[in-house]
């Protein structure tokens, strides 16, 4: 009896000892990717585009990043900063994700970054442009595949000055993104010799622009810089036209003024100049291939958000390959990404020390239903990353 039990025990133990490492060696655990994106509300379409872009790259890699198969976890962030901490904790603590992807709204992205920084979880932000995420709040484990609010603002400021405009009025919503883009614009415009003569703003998301348009007409600047998005952008561009300002004072803006809104803006948007890190009609082999693959897979045209999602997956793949799939090795991940060049549909870009893309800012002109690229507003523009000590 005794001998038999010992024998059996030894046998089982030996089998287990052989079996367990063997099973580990065969298939490493799946990479847990946590999407924290808006699935409902005004930004839902943006969240979908980001996820589509991410999945497109993953499919192109045969479903693996850094040698690991991918498993998705999702929460709807509802574009609500007050729920952001809870939502991100669900992904980190409950689902134990290896990497966080999110979000669209700058406020949500800020809250996510704060939690990601303290938990050390790898995070790639595929949209939210708040300067602080790759500025004063930057961290070794936090990256951005999109832009900082300062970048498109600064670039369009330079482009406006290059067009020979000497004075400008700015008009935005009074909140973080509006303030940061207007600040970037002012810096770019005044560095190039222009002068901002009037700074107008109204509370977010108020859309009664008429009083401010009257002020612009009365101040008569050479040109106007504006940042609005979504419904507010549609209304602003139409109001600007119907107030009769468009003929006399050219309208400039960051790309969000005319991205995804051209159908509703109609003829009022024609000729508006904006800057962004993506545009229609780039017509590079890389972009054409991407657009074709995206359209085939999802039966819709990609936009800047899809590109940002695609590049988030690319950055994740590059970083993970360097650390052999070990997402806990954020130092190694970061070191590899800062040296890497990302072959994006928007054009190749590198990652700054603060983990923000160093990228071309295109100058785009609205023509028909497209934001056609007409030049480069600022080449390989790097965010100053004020306050970042990486």
């Amino acid at each position, binding site marked *: 009896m005794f001998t038999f039990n010992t024998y059996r025990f030894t046998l089982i133990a030996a089998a287990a000892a052989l079996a367990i490492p063997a099973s580990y060696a065969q298939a490493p655990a799946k990479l847990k990717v946590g999407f924290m994106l808006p699935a409902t509300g005004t930004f839902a379409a943006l969240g979908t585009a980001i996820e589509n872009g991410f999945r497109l790259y993953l499919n192109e890699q045969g479903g693996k990043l850094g040698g690991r198969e991918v498993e998705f976890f999702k929460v709807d962030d509802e574009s609500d900063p007050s729920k952001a901490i809870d939502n991100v904790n669900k992904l980190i603590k409950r689902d134990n994700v290896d990497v966080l992807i999110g979000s669209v709204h700058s406020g949500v992205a800020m809250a996510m970054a704060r939690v990601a920084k303290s938990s050390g979880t790898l995070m790639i932000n595929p949209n939210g442009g708040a300067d602080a995420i790759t500025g004063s709040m930057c961290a070794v484990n936090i990256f951005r595949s999109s832009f900082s609010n300062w970048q498109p603002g600064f670039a369009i400021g330079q482009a406006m000055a290059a067009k020979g405009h000497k004075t400008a009025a700015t008009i935005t919503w009074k909140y973080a993104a509006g303030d940061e883009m207007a600040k970037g614009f002012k810096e770019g415009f005044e560095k190039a010799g222009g002068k901002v003569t009037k700074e107008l703003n109204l*509370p977010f998301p108020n859309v009664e622009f008429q*009083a401010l348009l009257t*002020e612009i*007409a009365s101040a008569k600047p050479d040109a106007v810089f504006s940042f609005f998005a979504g*419904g507010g952008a549609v209304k602003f561009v139409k109001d600007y036209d*119907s*107030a009769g300002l468009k003929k006399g004072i050219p309208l400039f803006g960051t790309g969000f003024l005319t991205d995804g809104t051209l159908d509703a803006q109609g003829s009022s948007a024609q000729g508006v100049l904006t800057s962004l890190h993506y545009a229609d009609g780039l017509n590079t082999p890389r972009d054409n291939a991407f657009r074709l693959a995206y359209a085939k897979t999802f039966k819709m045209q990609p936009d800047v958000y899809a590109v940002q999602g695609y590049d988030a997956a690319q950055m994740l793949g590059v970083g993970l390959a360097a650390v052999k799939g070990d997402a806990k090795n954020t130092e190694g991940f970061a070191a590899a990404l800062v040296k890497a060049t990302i072959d994006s549909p928007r054009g190749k870009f590198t990652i700054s020390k603060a983990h923000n893309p160093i990228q071309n800012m295109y100058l785009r002109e609205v023509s028909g239903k497209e934001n056609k690229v007409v030049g480069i507003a600022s080449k390989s523009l790097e965010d100053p990353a004020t306050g970042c000590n990486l």
Partner: protein
Amino acid sequence: MDITTFLIQCLNAVQYGLLLFLVASGLTLIFGIMGVINLAHGSFYMIGAYMAFALTPIVSSVFGGGFFAVLLVGVVLSVLLGYVLEWAFYSYLYNREHLQQVLMTYGLILVFEELRSLLVGDDVHGVQVPDILAGTLQLGDMMTYPVYRLFVSAVCLALAVGMYLVFTRTRLGMMIRAGASNREMVQSLGIDIQFLYRVVFAAGVAIAALAGMVAAPVSSVYPGMGSQVLIICFVVVVIGGIGSIKGAFVAALMIGVVDTFGKVFLPQASGVLVYLLMAGILLWKPDGLFKAG
């Protein structure tokens, strides 16, 4: 600020104020007559705006176009909608507590938003200004004022005067006012108060929807527009005195002026000026400017 700019800003202020009045008047009407706090009122404004967007191609293919035909069809549809909603939901709310009214009408907001999302999606849409109203008035060398905004003001003003006349000069108005003060007494005089309420409610819905339709070409059409307008409308109703149409008129114009000139002279504080105005007036007159009844 030169005199032309000042005059145009005054026009802006009045136009914004009148539009606010149009939306808020339905809200205060429904509260004043039936005692129902209708949170879904902003949704009626949104429904109006979406109707202007969705009906334009349909109406133009049937009647051969015309913004005014769209307005007419939209008003008829919204009267029907109001009538059905009163019959199906609001008639059960008259003698309930305000908390219950708020809960149910909040539920209606969610239903309307979801229906909108299903039927027309979450995109932002624009509505063309009709050709005959598309021009601008030249005032000074760079200063212009869109004709369509004058039209909006004219429609709002006409409705305000119309409402005033109906309430003070007609038999219907008299019955409505009497019904608001004493429902049982009016009923015992042989007047069908149920029908009367239904008419008032349908009118309230139609006015909000009309405001949405008229505003659509200048405000564009987007998800959540109803909730935005609802908040400022509550401010109008509270400042004016709950249930008072006259109060709503005065309060809406005050808000138009404060908001417009606030944006120009104190842009950093323009978001709170309207609420400061409300706080100031409530300190001075806790029931609002014109207490109803």
